[in-house]
């Protein structure tokens, strides 16, 4: 890549970062700006002259924002809270998982009545401790993944704001629906382990399953925004 091409790429990338517009529009703008720069170069202008005449990426982005005021995407900073929470969940889940796996490494225990090799020996084929551990392990990870999906869905909702399109809200609905299902399944499995937070309020202890709550809230919000968007499109 020549030095000129690097300057053009840096400029176009800087412009894209500053454009707070829907992705389709950003792609369209960058395509045209890139083409125009090359056409001006063919007309004999130097890259430096062209970029100076066009103005800084901030100034160019600002002009587009003025023309597209109704499309400007305002990303809520709260989205980083959900992203941080998602990262924390993964790290905490992996650490807890390692500790859990190490503390539950036992031989399968099978109860036997009578001599083990005799004709009267009866094996009690009930649930072994290993099966219980497996249920706990599997449901624990389901619950963790459910909560993780909820955090990702919440992050995306905060990024899209109220100006997302229907496809974006549908993405959030699918993620939070999957997260909700995964968060619910452990409740129906014997010995299921659900990620939960317990805290005291006065004399009462309250336990909540954050995966269920978060996914439910995001699902409902995304659904409402998608229906509203559909109504706006029809009008």
């Amino acid at each position, binding site marked *: 890549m020549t030095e000129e091409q690097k300057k053009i790429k840096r400029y176009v990338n800087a412009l894209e970062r500053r454009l707070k517009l829907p992705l389709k*529009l950003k792609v369209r703008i960058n395509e*045209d700006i890139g*083409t125009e720069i090359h*056409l001006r170069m063919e007309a004999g202008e130097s890259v430096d002259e062209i970029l100076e005449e066009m103005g800084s990426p901030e100034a*160019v982005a600002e002009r587009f924002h003025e023309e597209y005021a109704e499309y400007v995407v305002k990303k809520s900073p709260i989205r980083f809270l959900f992203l941080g929470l998602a990262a924390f969940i993964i790290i905490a889940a992996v650490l807890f998982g390692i500790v859990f796996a190490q503390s539950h490494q036992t031989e399968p225990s099978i109860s036997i009545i009578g001599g083990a090799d005799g004709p009267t020996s009866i094996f009690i084929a009930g649930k072994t401790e290993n099966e219980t551990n497996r249920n706990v392990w599997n449901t624990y990870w389901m619950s963790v993944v459910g909560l993780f999906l909820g955090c990702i869905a919440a992050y995306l909702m905060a990024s899209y704001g109220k100006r997302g399109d229907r496809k974006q809200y549908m993405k959030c609905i699918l993620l939070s629906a999957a997260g909700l299902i995964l968060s619910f399944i452990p409740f129906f499995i014997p010995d299921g382990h659900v990620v939960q937070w317990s805290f005291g309020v006065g004399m009462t202890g309250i336990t909540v399953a954050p995966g269920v709550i978060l996914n439910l809230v995001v699902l409902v919000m995304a659904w409402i925004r998608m229906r509203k968007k559909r109504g706006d499109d029809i009008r």
Partner: protein
Amino acid sequence: MESRFTQQLKKGVLEMVVLCIISEKDTYGYELLQELGKRGEGFFDLKEGTLYPILYRLEDDGLIQSSWKQDPERNGGRRPAPKKYYRITDAGSRAAEDYRDIWKKFEQCVDRLCGEGEV
């Protein structure tokens, strides 16, 4: 720096002006900027951030359509960059006619209201 009045007038007629220029011949963004600068008498020295949204709106409304074309190789062997040409559609031609009619009536009305020639 332009007065607010000039800016508002420009905003109002820009779509019509761009549509009229495209109706003369197929053209691309950079050529349009140059044409507006050359013929605009100082009123239409536009930047990309002002022109391209107009083009996108006209295209989304079906008044113009775009297509990529690459000019033949020049002497020297290097292929020129492909250009996105804009061409006016039938709906665009009708719209341009309507805009011209409205503009004529508007101009006459404003002249009458403001007293043509009087200060």
